[in-house]
């Protein structure tokens, strides 16, 4: 379980996260919604330790993976190298290439294994970024705006991909401004506004979750 207790984060004088406390069950998918500047991405970055909180604590057992909004694939490496580089550095004995190819096949982009990131479409980059995170065998996957800049059909693909990850038993926290997407994928949606949690609901309990959440924007 991921436990966040009284988390505060300031950038200069601006308090971006204000005493956030939160427990997230294993193998659940939690959506972080809210207006821009609400603190969604900062919360994800604090969980991943890309930002140091000013106070409060985050406890989590296991490995976490992070999918960046703009993917951050390594442009000078092929897809296969992007996937195998970090695992190879961390463990030289295993055959990471075979695992990577299996993962790329499952995600339907095995034919792109030797392409460079600039030769891929947005949706393909998204799959590579996901595969790269999965290569590290995370038990928690943090996704920052995974549908940003993607067309409707590709968003459907992302839903399918994340459901595939759910089946692997990975807990996910997804920050997105796209309420439609979040209600399709998340077991629970937390709305952050002004750095504080203003709503914490399970979409299945509501008849019209999107309308319900929009009322808090």
């Amino acid at each position, binding site marked *: 379980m991921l436990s966040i207790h009284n988390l505060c984060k300031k950038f200069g004088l601006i308090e971006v996260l204000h005493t956030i406390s939160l427990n997230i069950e294993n193998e659940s998918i939690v959506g972080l919604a809210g207006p821009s500047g609400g603190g969604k991405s900062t919360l994800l970055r604090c969980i*991943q330790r*890309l930002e140091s909180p000013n106070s409060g604590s985050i406890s989590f057992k296991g490995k976490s*993976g*992070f999918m*960046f909004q*703009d993917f*951050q*694939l*390594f*442009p*000078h490496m092929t897809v296969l190298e992007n996937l195998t*580089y*970090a695992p190879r*550095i*961390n463990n030289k004995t295993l055959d990471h290439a075979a695992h990577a190819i299996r993962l790329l096949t499952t995600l339907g982009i095995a034919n792109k294994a030797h392409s*460079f*990131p*600039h030769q891929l479409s947005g949706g393909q980059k998204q799959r590579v970024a996901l595969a*790269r995170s999965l290569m*590290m065998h995370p038990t928690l996957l943090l996704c920052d705006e995974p549908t940003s800049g993607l067309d409707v059909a590709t968003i459907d693909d992302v839903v399918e991909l994340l459901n595939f990850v759910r089946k692997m038993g990975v807990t996910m926290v997804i920050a997105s401004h796209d309420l439609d997407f979040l209600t399709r994928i998340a077991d629970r949606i937390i709305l952050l506004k002004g750095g504080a949690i203003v709503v914490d609901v399970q979409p299945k309990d509501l008849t019209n979750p999107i309308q319900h959440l929009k009322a808090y924007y």
Partner: protein
Amino acid sequence: MEGLIKDILLIGSGILLTLELLIGGLLIGILLGTLCAILRYKKIFTLVINRFISIMRGTPLILQLSFIYFATPGLLGIKLSILAAGIITFGLNSSAYVAEILRAGIENLPKGQFEAAKTLQIPHFYAWKDIILPQVIKNILPAMVNEVIALLKETALISTIGGMDLMRRAQSVASEQFTYFIPLCIAGGYYYGLTLLIEYIGKKMEQKKMYA
């Protein structure tokens, strides 16, 4: 005609020293410059490295060369050869410029590349070696070619401490013949030829880049 060929060969014999200074200075410049560029992000080194770069860029190269060649024997009791003094001076001076070129390249790289490396638990050394620097080098290649060309021309300063390089040999031929035009044109031709060669190598390296 025979005299001209003799002059070309005589002045050309200084090319060895010019190339030794260029290659030696460049090696030190790249190694030390890269080290400075990386270590200046570590707080304990920032001040020292910033001062070093500032002094190297803020004082004349001819002063630095004179300092290393004439002042070190008195200060440290070490007598350096002309070649060693030249390589050390040009290397130290170039390292300051290389560090600044690298800084521009590093700061132009998306912050997310560092974060992606951290997220994937790639150790610092490997992140710099395999993720950051290969991307930075591709971006700074044109500026680095400029630096190499500048260094080549700066090696002519070795003549001020008696180094028999292209420039000094041209001056020596000129003073023997009481005419400067031909010897200086010959030296200029050598320098320009070397510059064209460096530009050509730089272009080939840029074309070799593997991604857009």
